[in-house]
């Protein structure tokens, strides 16, 4: 039987107590913890890649056989980019389950007792949400390219795309934190959260231009962040003319429209993230 070898080396405890840790150090530790919990088996690393690869290899090519092109863009590439509007929200929202597990397992209590601002817990989780999102987008684009999709090689275009993905992931992660803070049980969360990720995707011009919808739905689509994200992504990697941006803004200067759309995404992301840290802190402390 294992025994405890008491007493401890108590001289050590007479030395100066641990000082207040640097925020950066706490942030990186929290991020590493979340990575370790989210990807501690090969299955947890590979499963998130399965969906984008299946979309790119099966669904997009099949749809492209029925609809060869839209607005001069091959439909396979158009749909591949549209898929990002589903993948990122879904993986970010499902990441909220980890926060509920933290609370139910008690781990959250220990983290709340750590000498650091509690908002860093939200930012630590956000790092993982961003990494998983970018990882999935890379897998999707890679698999699509391997199946014959054509993407821009312009660096500035890719910067627009990356900024859009980061904004979308931040926005959806903020929503996930808010939902996870307010919903007490995993079972309840699983019932509520996916529609939050899915419903906007149907209106955001994933499979067709938003101008193809009735005017009311088009108007609704224009205020959804995911619509702006998809328009930015397509402008960045498949559509130099920015047809999606034009559907939203109706302007002639694509750079200006892209800037406006990125600003919309940024404002949504910043607002929801700020709200999520506030809600998390308020709900976590009784």
């Amino acid at each position, binding site marked *: 039987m294992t025994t405890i070898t008491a007493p401890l080396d108590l001289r050590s405890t007479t030395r100066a107590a*641990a000082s207040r840790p640097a925020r950066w150090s706490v942030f990186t530790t929290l991020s590493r913890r979340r990575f370790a919990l989210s990807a501690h088996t090969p299955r947890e690393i590979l499963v998130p890649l399965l969906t984008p690869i299946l979309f790119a290899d099966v669904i997009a090519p099949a749809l492209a056989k029925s609809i060869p092109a839209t607005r001069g863009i091959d439909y396979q590439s158009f749909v591949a980019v549209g898929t990002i509007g589903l993948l990122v929200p879904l993986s970010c929202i499902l990441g909220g389950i980890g926060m509920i597990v933290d609370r139910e397992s008690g781990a959250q209590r220990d983290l709340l007792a750590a000498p650091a601002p509690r908002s860093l817990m939200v930012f630590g989780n956000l790092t993982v949400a961003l990494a998983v999102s970018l990882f999935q987008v890379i897998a999707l684009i890679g698999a699509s390219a391997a199946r014959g999709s054509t993407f821009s090689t312009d660096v500035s275009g890719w910067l627009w795309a990356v900024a859009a993905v980061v904004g979308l992931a931040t926005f959806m992660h903020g929503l996930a934190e808010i939902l996870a803070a307010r919903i007490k049980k995993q079972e309840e969360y699983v019932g509520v959260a996916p529609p939050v990720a899915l419903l906007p995707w149907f209106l955001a011009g994933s499979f067709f231009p938003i101008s193809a919808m009735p005017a009311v739905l088009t108007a609704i689509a224009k205020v959804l962040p995911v619509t702006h994200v998809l328009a930015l992504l397509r402008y960045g990697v498949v559509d130099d003319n920015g047809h999606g941006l034009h559907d939203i803004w109706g302007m002639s200067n694509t750079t200006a429209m892209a800037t406006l759309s990125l600003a919309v995404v940024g404002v949504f992301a910043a607002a929801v993230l700020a709200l999520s840290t506030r809600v998390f802190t308020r709900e976590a*402390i009784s």
Partner: protein
Amino acid sequence: MSGSNGRQPAIEVNGLTKVYSGGVEAVKGVTFDVAHGEVFGLLGPNGAGKSTTIGMLTTTVSPTSGTARVAGCDVVTDPIGVRAASAVVFQDPVVDRPLTGRRNLSIHARLWGVARAEVEARVSEVAARFGLVDLLDRAVETYSGGQRRRLEIARSLISRPRVLFLDEPTVGLDPRIRFELLDVIGGLRDAGAMTIVLTTHYLDEAERLCDRVAIVHEGRIVALDTPRALLGQLGHEIVELRIDAPGEPLLAFLRERALVGEGAFVLGSTLTLPRRGTPSRDLFAAVDDFGAAVIAVTTRPPSLDDVYLNLTGGRLPAAA
């Protein structure tokens, strides 16, 4: 009580109150100080307010009113200072079960500001002290309950806190591990290196470990003193009478005859009577006069259980 050497106390609590949403008043204006190096016990039944008090002192529960300072830092205005100087072992498990023991220890060390270069040495040190060396690289979900508890206590000490909060630390442990942990806590106390606040249901733990004990009942401190002084309230000897009927009427009868004092109490059909110079024959004669049949008689020294049961019994409102 102020610091033993004239320093500011390690913990100062003044009128601390917590009212949860819905109006539940869990803690009702408790006041106490804990000196540096002292082991301070909070004793009380479930729902007494012990864990809420610990929660406010560890800044995981926000006080409704009152003030508290831990290691000189105010729990409301400088919560990060409080948390940097302290560590807590919670009543319920809080480790990350999918991760290894080593990972749990190192994450905690880094969160509490232990330098990266020092983490591995600290992990090895606490693992050796708590018999965890062979378990370190296993996922915590494979640990037994006792192993997990040891990991949690080891983890709390890895940052070398100045103030350690132990919320029911031995609940659910087998007797051997429990006594070994008590030895460890006793070692911390003997070295005087760390201030410890301990909540427990086990009165023997409080008697063995604590320099002072606060008995908490319904959100209030109903007694606060050294175990010796608390025991002294009940005299040198306790007579326990078990009778064949409910004990309350007999106790009232004995009180009428001034044969028992304030420390006497009843649990079911058992009367616990501190002896204060009353000859035993007078006591038994009175029981005979009352008409009760005595099933068993025990005499023993008073324990903290007696103090606790006396104070948290029916006379509590008066005591509070």
